[in-house]
C-alpha cells in the first residue's frame, strides 16, 4: 500500500517525519529529504500531525526534528514506529527529576 507525500521532514538530519494525513499501519510513505525521495515502511498507525521514526533510535538517544533535539528516547524505537509521549521524554523543565 502506498501513501504518497503524506509526511514532511523539516531538516536533512531529522530522525523523525511528521505526517500531514493519517497513515495506516503497514503503509509505505514517500518522503522528500534534501531534494531526494525515499520510502519508509510505517509499521504503526500515525494520527494527523504525529511523527514516525526515519531510523532506528536507541534508548537514551536524542530525537531530532527541525535539526534540533526535541527530547530523549525512553526505549529503543525502530524505523517506521510512532514517536510520541510513550517513547520520548522532554529534557527540560523536569521538576519530577529534581533531587528531593
Amino acid at each position, binding site marked *: 500500500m502506498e501513501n504518497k*507525500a503524506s509526511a*514532511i521532514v*523539516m531538516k536533512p538530519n531529522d530522525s523523525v517525519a*511528521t505526517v*500531514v494525513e493519517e497513515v495506516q499501519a503497514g503503509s509505505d510513505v514517500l518522503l522528500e529529504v534534501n531534494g531526494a525521495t525515499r520510502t519508509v515502511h510505517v509499521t504503526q498507525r500515525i*494520527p*494527523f*500531525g*504525529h*511523527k514516525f521514526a526515519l531510523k532506528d533510535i536507541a534508548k537514551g538517544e536524542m*530525537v531530532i*526534528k*527541525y535539526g*534540533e*533535539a*526535541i*527530547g530523549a528516547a525512553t526505549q529503543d524505537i525502530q524505523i517506521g514506529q510512532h*514517536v*510520541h*509521549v510513550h517513547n*520520548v*521524554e*522532554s*529534557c*527540560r*523543565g*523536569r*521538576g*519530577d*527529576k*529534581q533531587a528531593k
Partner: protein
Amino acid sequence: MEFMGYRRSDGSVGIRNHVLVMPTVVCANRVARGIAQNVQGAVWFEHQHGCSQIGADAALTEKILLQHGTHPNVSGVVVVGLGCETIRAQDIAAEIKRQCPYKTVHCVIMQDEGGSFKAIAAGSSAAQKMLMEASLLEREPINASELILGTECGGSDACSGMSANPALGYASDLLIDAGGTVILAETPELIGAEHLVAARAVNEQVAKRCYEVIQQREDGAKAMGVDMRGGNPTPGNIEGGLTTIEEKSLGCVYKGGTRPLQDVIDYGDKITKKGLIWMDTPGNDIEQLTAMVAGGCHIVVFTTGRGTATGSPIAPTVKIATNTAMYEKMNDNMDGNAGTVITGEETIQQVGQRIFDEILRVASGKRTKAELLGQNDFSISRIGPSM
C-alpha cells in the same frame, strides 16, 4: 508602505478608536460591564485583581491596567472603582490623563455615586459622549514603520511549526524591514529554542538575557516538582502531535522571523525600540496577549492549530489557522489559513505575504473575527500572594 491610522496629538499612532470601560478592581466588574453594554461600541474587560495585592505584584497589576488606558488604540476611558480598593480608580484615571492629555477620561466610583445603578448611569453618559467624539476622528496615511505587531501561537499542533509560524515569521521580517516592530513572547514556549534566538542578539548583554529569562521560567516549572508536560505542552498540543516542550518551542520560534534580536524586556514593559523584541511572558495565551497589548502592540497575529476564539478588547487579534481542516471547522473564529502550506497549494512566502497584507488591512480598519465576536480576553500574571 502605509496604512490608514489615527495620529494622536502627542504623536502616537492608533489603529482603533476604542472607548474602554475599565474596572480597577474585581468588585467593579459588574458595573463596568453594565456601562459597556448600555453604549453601543464601547469595549470593556473584567479581571480578578486590584485589591489585597502588595509590592511588585500590585505594581504589575497597576502597570497593566494603566497601560491599557494609555494605549493609543483607545481614545476615551471610563475608569470604574468600588472605592476602597488597593488600586484606586481615581489614581489610574489621573495618570492616564497626565500621560495622554488627548484622551477623554472619566472616573466612576461606586461608593461615591451611591450604588451600582447610579454608577452605571454616570459611566454610561460619559461613555456615550466619548464615543460621539471618537466618531469624528479621521484616519490618515501612516508609515508601516510605526506599527507594533505582537506574535502569538496557541492551541498549537504539529502544523504550527510547519505552516502558520514560519509564514508569520516571513510577515514579521517584512514589517521589520519596513522599519516596524515585532514582539516575540511566551518564554516557556522558547525552552529548547533559546540558543537560536540568542544567536541573533545584537550584543552579548541581550544574548545573556535570553538565557536568563529561560532559566527563570524553567526553574519555576522545576520548583513545582513535576514534569511540565501536561501544563505545557497541553493535552491538546499532545493530541495534536507535539511530544515535548522542546518540539513545541522549535516550531514556536519561527513566528518571530529571522531578523536580529534588539532587546529582551519584562512582562508588559512599554515597547520603545524598533525591530525584533522578546517580551518575557508566560505561555498562557491570555496573560501573554494582555502583556503584549499593555506594552503597546497595535495588533496581534495569533496562529492556532487546535483553534481558539481569543482576542484583546483593544488590539485587533488576527487568527491564522495552521491546517485547512480546522480553518473550515472553526471558520467563525479564523481570519486566515496557512494550511495551504501543508497541502502544497502555497509556499510559506506566499502565505507570509498574505498575512502581512492582512496586517495592513486590519490596521487600516478591517475588523477581525474576534472583534466582531466581542472577544475581550484579559488576564494579568500574578507574581505574589493575595493578602
